[in-house]
């Protein structure tokens, strides 16, 4: 189907179902119940899930396939955001030209940075990308203020020309982003008994693009190009002595992943038309590294899982406070209750990053394959016999 084998196609279907029904899946608790605050099915957050998913899918094409660890990909995300906002300022509020420009500009930017950084490999490559990203961040904050609007960030104003649109709406406010008239912020609300589900146009646009991005990444993984990238990760010496030039392959992977980042940046700006330099900081690049590794670098679904996992728990954890904890452990004797709440306190609310850091370390130490490997190990426990059979078959039977 669609040029995918059965397994990949069903993976695509799973992702499609998850994103399509996310407004239901993420809102399991009825409105007004005590647990309702842990619902994640509101547009703003769901948009973030898929946008970071796209970012991580792209990053995985570089890290997962070639093994090159870039600490500078946030720069491309930032460039994408700036380009998109400029498109909103100059051309129109339609998101399509903004997205296209962002992808092209970030691709060109990645071409330049990749061309230079990929002259070195290993840790030197990581540090070169880090240096470039910090440079872009510093420049965006200082000299490039005419383009980036410095610390304030780039925003829409009533004075923007918007040659194909309008500078201001009839009632004198700044127009909103749209897809040929469909406003990105428009949300259809559905009430089912005590449950409230929200279907947001912007979210569904992002979800659709996520599916396309995911599909494209499957195709890349299964293509000869993907094979070459994995070969680069596995053994560059053999690759060189097999008559293949590794550099254009890695550069292509770098540019593609940079374009994915630019796409994510453009979508961020399309949902909320502003762009700030902090999106380019190296710690923001670190976040996509966390997502990809946590989910499982080099696997198809891993980065999406990682992005969803981090953004979901970031949201949940930051909402748990001591009062909530006391509620949970009420049944315990007072002393014990206070002790447990005291122990958990640093990990919740604003302490989410501590939890994330610990989780990340645990994954790197014990589960180098990330959540995907964790899932596979659990699955193996349940059907221990089957994989052995499969292994035998693979060895004895000729090609299918």
């Amino acid at each position: 189907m669609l040029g995918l084998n059965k397994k990949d196609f069903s993976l695509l279907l799973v992702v499609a179902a998850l994103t399509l029904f996310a407004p239901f899946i993420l809102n399991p608790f009825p409105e007004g119940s005590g647990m309702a605050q842990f619902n994640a099915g509101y547009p703003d957050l769901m948009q973030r899930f898929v946008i970071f998913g796209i970012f991580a899918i792209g990053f995985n094409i570089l890290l997962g396939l070639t093994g090159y660890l870039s600490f500078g990909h946030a720069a491309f995300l930032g460039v994408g955001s700036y380009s998109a906002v400029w498109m909103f300022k100059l051309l129109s509020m339609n998101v399509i030209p903004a997205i296209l420009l962002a992808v092209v500009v970030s691709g060109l930017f990645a071409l330049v940075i990749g061309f230079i950084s990929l002259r070195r490999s290993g840790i030197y490559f990581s540090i070169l990308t880090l240096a470039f990203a910090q440079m872009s961040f510093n420049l965006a904050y200082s000299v490039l203020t005419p383009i980036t609007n410095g610390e304030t960030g780039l925003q829409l104003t009533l004075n923007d020309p918007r040659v194909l649109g309008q500078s201001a709406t009839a009632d004198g406010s700044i127009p909103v982003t749209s897809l040929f008239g469909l406003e990105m912020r428009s949300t259809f609300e559905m009430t089912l008994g005590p449950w409230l589900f929200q279907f947001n146009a912007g979210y569904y646009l992002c979800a659709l693009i996520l599916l396309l991005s995911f599909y494209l990444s499957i195709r890349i993984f299964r293509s000869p190009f993907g094979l070459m990238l994995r070969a680069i990760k596995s053994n560059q010496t053999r690759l060189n002595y097999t008559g293949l030039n590794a550099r254009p392959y890695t550069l292509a992977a770098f540019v593609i992943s940079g374009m994915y980042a630019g796409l994510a940046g453009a979508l961020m700006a399309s949902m909320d038309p502003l762009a700030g330099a902090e999106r380019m900081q190296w710690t923001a690049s670190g976040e996509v590294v966390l997502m990809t590794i946590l989910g499982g670098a080099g696997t198809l679904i891993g980065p999406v899982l990682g992005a969803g996992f981090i953004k979901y728990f970031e949201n949940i954890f930051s909402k748990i406070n001591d009062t909530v904890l006391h509620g949970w452990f009420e049944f315990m004797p007072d002393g014990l209750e206070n002790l447990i709440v005291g122990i958990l306190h640093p990990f919740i609310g604003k302490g989410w990053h501590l939890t994330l850091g610990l989780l990340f370390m645990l994954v790197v130490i014990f589960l180098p394959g990330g959540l995907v490997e964790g899932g596979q190990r659990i699955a193996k426990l349940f059907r221990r016999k089957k994989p052995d059979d499969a292994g035998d078959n693979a060895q004895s039977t000729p090609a299918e």
Partner: protein
Amino acid sequence: MDAIILQILNGLDKGSAYALIALGLTLIFGTLGVVNFAHGALFMIGAFCAVTLSRILNFSFETIDPTKTDFLGNPAKIKTTYVEHWFGADFGATIIDWAVPLAILFSIPIMILFGFIVERGLIKHFYKRPHADQILVTYGLAIVLQEIIKAFYGANPIPTPAPDVFKGSFDFGTLLGFEPNAIIYPYWRLVYFAFSALIISGVFAFLRFTTFGMVVRAGMADRETVGLLGLNIDKRFTFMFGLAAAVAGVAGVMYAPINSPNYHMGMDFLVLSFVVVVVGGMGSLPGAVLAGFLLGILESFASMNEVKSLIPGIDQIIIYVVAIIILLTRPRGLMGRKGVMED
């Protein structure tokens, strides 16, 4: 001329910090072969050792002084720190005033112990893993450490003053025969420079003149052979990590008065010190020190108004530009050795 000297001096203190962190990074990398992204966090913890000691010294108890009243007319409560109580008011106040230098003594055992724990508990298991894994796990550690500090000390910078004697500035220009006030330089920065020079010479002397240091240097040149000699490399590795942590720690302690400690100062310094290490040459200790000072001074030159008007924004990117040029033209850095991290 005076402007140039001023910029060199200005570059020295930042350069000293870069050099000290880069020195520790290089020690770890050179001996243990580990790329330590948590090194900035060690610097940050050092700075918070200074904060902690000054808080401990300021522990106080309250007494009621019946002879005085506060503005509501109640008998005034007087806070007395225990230190003043025990050592007398004058000497006690001096101790509190000298909290930062005293914190060096306080921080060294803490940092060494902490280094031991981290090396034994975590780093040890990553010697054989790829560099990317080392970067990732130490990056995770850096996040954890900075978040722990944030949980205890909050997100705001905590001003930690230098002793009174070193407050204020020193008119360096008059010494050299310039106009008064031509070159004004804060005393503490001078102290910082002298201190880092001391630490750096200490580390070099240790490596040069002790048997232990000789083995470590041999290990940096050729790890496998030293392993074959049957020397107990493990213990030495642990100690080296402790030493590197202590160097980063004291660098942080002394930096506290220059830049009020905050939880993300480690990450801020980390990127720059990695750049310094790479410019100096992976695995080269003199290279790390040289590049640290060089980049510190270069940075302060780039922030001169004359330079900035010539090339706008150069002060923000000079270090990175230099690093990129060096990496591309001299892959081994300024003083790197052949065969270290080359691929």
